[in-house]
């Protein structure tokens, strides 16, 4: 399967993790965080983000231990055949379930802004085709597409965030963790909050393609750190501009942020649609990488050489799943399942696998 050869630079891996992590989550993250933690939602995001940097270290080290294999290949050896298989299935499910949510978010975005009234089959269908078309490429091409798109998305996003500083009021970020504002009864929402962070599986899948596998941990940590930073910054500015009460009400807070930017001098009247256009690329990178990884992982699991067949075969299934996420509540519930899965993998299986690999190493000595 290693057709791509070792062609990815550390930078590209960092960007792939970023591209996978930064997607639809960022547009909704501030309102979720505000809903649970009130005005100090940004701090919560930072804390969770930093927590994931720690997990990133484990994931990176684990990947470095097996520089020639993906996690699908070595997990049965570490966990035993049955548990290994179960773990692999869960791992692939985690990668896969991101796609329908991703498609759904795109559908919503496009429908509320760019093409009101466009039918689902058109928007989701074309997007899905584009995903499959892209994902059936080789790994270096995926990395290149991701590199270009995610950079544009982050650049435009940051531009909007910085431009909206004109409305920023630091008092909106206070008080820090006040009892009145924290709504911990919505535990599932808290899970949803972590949905945006679960981008570590990427590194355990692409390590056989990294040019210099010894840079893996560094690249992973860098990416997680960036994700934490970007999310925190974005949440902080959103809350600072809108105040947490309004932030809860706004479902697509990133777009509202762009809408509130006064850009009279710019040739376009509004920035929000520009943001959406660039954000489609961020969404696309998430979907692209996860489709690619699903194809790769399933290919290794069932020993099919051509991952493209798997990817195209999954298209109708994905379409059906994304169409069954009918409304906001259903798909937030879904994203919670995905988040739960990612939590279990990140905080239980990664340390476990790492521990097992260390023990195995010792035994060999």
């Amino acid at each position, binding site marked *: 399967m290693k057709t791509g050869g070792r062609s990815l630079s550390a930078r590209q891996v960092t960007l792939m993790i970023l591209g996978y992590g930064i997607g639809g989550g960022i547009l909704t993250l501030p309102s979720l965080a505000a809903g649970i933690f009130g005005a100090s939602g940004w701090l919560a995001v930072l804390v969770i983000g930093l927590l994931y940097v720690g997990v990133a270290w484990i994931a990176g080290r684990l990947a470095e231990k097996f520089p020639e294999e993906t996690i699908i290949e070595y997990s049965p050896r570490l966990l035993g055949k049955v548990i290994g298989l179960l773990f692999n299935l869960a791992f692939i499910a985690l990668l896969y379930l991101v796609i329908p949510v991703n498609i759904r978010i795109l559908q919503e975005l496009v429908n509320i802004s760019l093409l009101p009234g466009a039918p689902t089959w058109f928007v989701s269908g074309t997007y899905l085709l584009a995903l499959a078309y892209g994902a*059936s490429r080789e790994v270096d091409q995926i990395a290149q597409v991701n590199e270009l798109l995610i950079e544009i998305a982050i650049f435009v996003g940051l531009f909007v965030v910085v431009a909206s500083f004109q409305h920023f009021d630091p*008092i909106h970020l*206070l008080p820090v963790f006040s009892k009145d504002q924290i709504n911990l009864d919505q535990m599932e929402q808290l899970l949803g909050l972590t949905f945006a962070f679960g981008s570590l599986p990427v590194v355990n899948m692409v390590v056989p393609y990294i040019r210099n596998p010894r840079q893996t941990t560094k690249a992973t940590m860098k990416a997680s750190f960036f994700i934490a930073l970007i999310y925190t910054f974005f949440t902080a500015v959103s809350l600072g501009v809108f105040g947490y*009460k*309004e932030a809860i009400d706004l479902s697509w807070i990133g777009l*509202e942020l762009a809408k*509130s930017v006064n850009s009279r001098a710019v040739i376009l009247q509004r920035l929000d649609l520009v943001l959406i256009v660039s954000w489609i690329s961020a969404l696309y990178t998430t979907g692209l990488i996860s489709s690619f990884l699903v194809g790769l992982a399933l290919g290794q699991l069932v020993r099919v050489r051509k991952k493209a067949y798997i990817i*195209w075969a999954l298209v109708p299934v994905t379409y059906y799943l994304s169409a069954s996420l009918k409304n906001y509540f259903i798909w937030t519930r879904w994203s919670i399942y995905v988040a739960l899965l990612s939590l279990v993998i990140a905080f239980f299986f990664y340390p476990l696998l790492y521990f097992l690999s260390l023990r195995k190493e010792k035994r060999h000595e």
Partner: protein
Amino acid sequence: MNRPVKSTSFRKKGFFFSMLLVIVLTASGCWQGLELNARAFVTAVAFDRPATEEADPSEFLLSVQIPVPAKMGGEGGDGGGGGGGDQPFVVFGTTAKLVQIGIRQLQRQIDRELFFGHTQLILINVEVAKTIGVDRLLDYFKRDFRVQRMTKIAIIDGVAREILNLQPPISQTPSAYIENLLSAQSGSAINYISDFGRFLVEQSEEGTEPVLPRLSMGKETVQTGGAAVIHKGKFAGWLSNLETRGLNILLNQNITSNYEVACPLHPRETIVVGAENFRAHHRLREIDGQTTYLIKVRGKFETVEFSEKHGPLAVLQDDLEKVVSATVQAELEQTIRRAQELGADILGVGRHLQAFKPDLWRRMKSNWGREFSAFPIKVEVKMEWAMTVRRLGG
């Protein structure tokens, strides 16, 4: 190491799918794609009391202003000013209880689809704002993604619809004219600058109440000045021109304004000073065991009309600074008094309590309107004579 060549069957498949895509796309036609000329750009919306006296108090008269493209864009020349009675816009109106229904009723009269993406202005008659509430009227626009957050909102002391029909002195449409008036560029200190986005933020937040600019009809033009305080989504009361100026200073709105003060050395003479660079710092302080909201205002001023007769500069400086400070302070205190009178926390005191004294806030939250009226608020003003030497002596 030779890279495996992508098999041709694969490429064919990609080609096949892209062809499929094209066919699907062309077969499906277009959705909601509307020509520019099939849309009616609504530039301004106005809410009024229905003309008939016996109307239901929960009903309102909804008017929209739509520019006529052929008269505005068209062949360059005749666009300027639209003189000769042939106005470059039309105004439609209908009475309704809900904005959504009103718009649907309007749509029945207009052959093009009403489009709110370019709405620059939402004008609300004060009576309507009092009875129905600003909140309810704006709800529709809050939900329409195409409405901009930069849309200006104003409370009208008079009939809002008349403004839509007004012949603007310079700009092409009244909406453009009024939007400019309500923007910061008009530079008037007694004009409260706000927009839809700001209104929504202030509205949603606990411990702050929104303020909207006031517009009143003059003879042939519209005048800005003053502001409307909104309390719990409804109109609560006006702020006078000077109170608005005070509010602008308190909220750090970066204004420039003139003050007339008595000359400290020659009590009968007046000195006009131009003040600017106001900075207001809001603090919560314990004063005499009581939590007090302390606003420290600093600013700079420059004499505008000044002559030798007022006395030597060196002697005058201290006294003049004191006098100006006192004048400004009196005005700010008046603003605060007015706000407390109305029971509307337009200063954001509650927001500060929430951020820095959460315990106190928890106690006061439920009854904040009344608590605010009694809350000790202190203003300290220190004005400084900038003395940028533009001209020595008179």
